[in-house]
């Protein structure tokens, strides 16, 4: 029984991680139609930003503040990653709207470069992020331990999705983002500053990747190539959910999280990976546009 509950929690936790890593992609890819292969590297940027914050706090600030560095690291990693996203948009991505396959290839190049830059700055080996002491351990309940870090990530992902949902669907900027990504020319003819909105949208997606990176420092490695571990999963979540909406992304993320944990418990991690991907492939045969999708009447 306790195994069941803790596996349930693990599924939720994995789902929330999936959601965080996919959320930014749901914007840059789902909405803006940029097949952003550098998404993983933006996650990496967020992770390194957290690492740097930790260094600053441990080296230059009073020791008692160290406990709170993580709360500063979250917005900082968002800002750093979105700034880099902003630069990328200004310099490269803006030439690639309406050319999805080209965006895939160019962002692939970007990811190579970002990895190499990280390697030059931080060195090839992994770096360690030390979590504040209060994050160690977990909440004892039903005879199981729910690690604080996982609870934190779970809440972080819920907060992110709520804010993002509100921003995209209830604010006028959100509406502008959706309009511009759908039909850039017409949006500009209506008086929307499309270039600004483009940059904003991409920076937002990148920033969310940064937050994902920040949260991953609690659980996993931080090195120049960590982006490659998450990129495929992130894409799978988005396409499984259906491009263009957040609802699908949420269900996709938790679906994959749950399925992985269930399968992994009985068949091992390797087979879990194979089975989960196979299930996704088969599921898409049935619903080619993902769980939630919108079909237009137009021919293409």
């Amino acid at each position, binding site marked *: 029984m306790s195994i069941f509950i803790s596996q349930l929690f693990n599924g939720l936790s994995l789902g929330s991680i999936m959601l965080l890593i996919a959320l930014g992609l749901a914007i840059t890819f789902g909405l803006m139609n940029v097949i952003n292969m550098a998404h993983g590297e933006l996650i990496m940027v967020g992770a390194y930003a957290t690492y740097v914050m930790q260094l600053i706090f441990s080296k230059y600030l009073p020791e008692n503040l160290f406990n709170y560095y993580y709360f500063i690291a979250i917005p900082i990693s968002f800002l750093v990653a979105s700034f880099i996203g902003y630069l990328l948009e200004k310099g490269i991505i803006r030439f690639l709207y309406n050319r999805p396959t080209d965006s895939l290839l160019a962002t692939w190049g970007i990811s190579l470069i970002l990895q190499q830059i990280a390697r030059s700055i931080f060195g090839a080996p992994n770096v360690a992020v030390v979590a504040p002491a209060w994050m160690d351990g977990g909440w004892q309940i039903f005879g199981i331990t729910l690690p604080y870090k996982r609870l934190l990530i779970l809440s972080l992902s819920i907060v992110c999705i709520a804010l993002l949902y509100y921003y995209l669907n209830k604010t*006028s900027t959100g*509406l*502008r983002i*959706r*309009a511009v990504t*759908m*039909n850039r*020319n*017409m*949006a*500009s*003819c*209506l*008086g*929307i*500053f*499309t*270039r600004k909105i483009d940059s904003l949208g991409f920076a937002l997606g990148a920033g969310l990747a940064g937050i994902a990176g920040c949260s991953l420092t609690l659980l996993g490695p931080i090195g120049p190539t960590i982006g490659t571990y998450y990129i495929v999963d992130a894409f799978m979540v988005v396409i499984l959910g259906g491009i*263009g909406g957040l609802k699908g992304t949420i269900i996709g993320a938790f679906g994959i999280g749950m399925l992985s944990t269930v399968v992994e418990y009985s068949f091992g991690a390797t087979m879990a990976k194979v089975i989960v991907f196979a299930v996704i492939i088969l599921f898409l045969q049935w619903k080619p546009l993902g769980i939630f999708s*919108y079909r*237009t*009447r*137009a021919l293409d």
Partner: protein
Amino acid sequence: MLKISSLKAGYDETMVLNNVHLEVEKGKVVSILGRNGAGKTTLIKTIVGLLKPMDGTIYWNDQEITHELPERRAKKGIGYVPQGREIFSSLTVEENLILGFEAVSKKIEKTLVLEEIFELFPVLKEMLKRKGGDLSGGQQQQLAIARALAGQPELLLLDEPMEGIQPSIVEQIQEVIVKIASKKGIGVVLVEHSIDSAFACSDEYYILDKRTVVSKGVVKNTNIEDIQQYLVV
């Protein structure tokens, strides 16, 4: 308020328009006629800024806007109903209309404007929550016009706005065009394929052919037969 001189425009290597002069005054409806492929849409796109002119100048209220971005032009009061409607297909009708307000910089009573629009196009009110892309062809066309009107333009560019709209509403639209032009002092550029419906509501006409304006004049003083020749295939 709109003045175009010596305009040269086209796509990549192909020049479609050459040496086009055009003027639109406040409160006047100007229709543009021409055979298929004469360059009517090209001209409109150049005015809204989607196409960069190869040469020539565009003045808006005595200010040069030849190289301005479409969004700036929209903010300055140029509204546009494209050929092919260009509805945001996965946004709802309501959201499409709200986007129409983007061009408006001053404070306005949005509900009032919407009421006015719904009077014209009652279907839209019924379908506020439906996705734009699910509407029928004619409904989309109505939405496109409504969206442009929501932006309170000073100049309205209509690229074949009657296409696909049922006769009773076509009449209404023609009336509206006349009305907004005269009452609100809005300039209208109307691209039309049919001389009859164009002449039914416009003050002046231009005919495009062979890359340029081959005939222009005041509708009242013109005999349709005289210009029919330019439109025969």
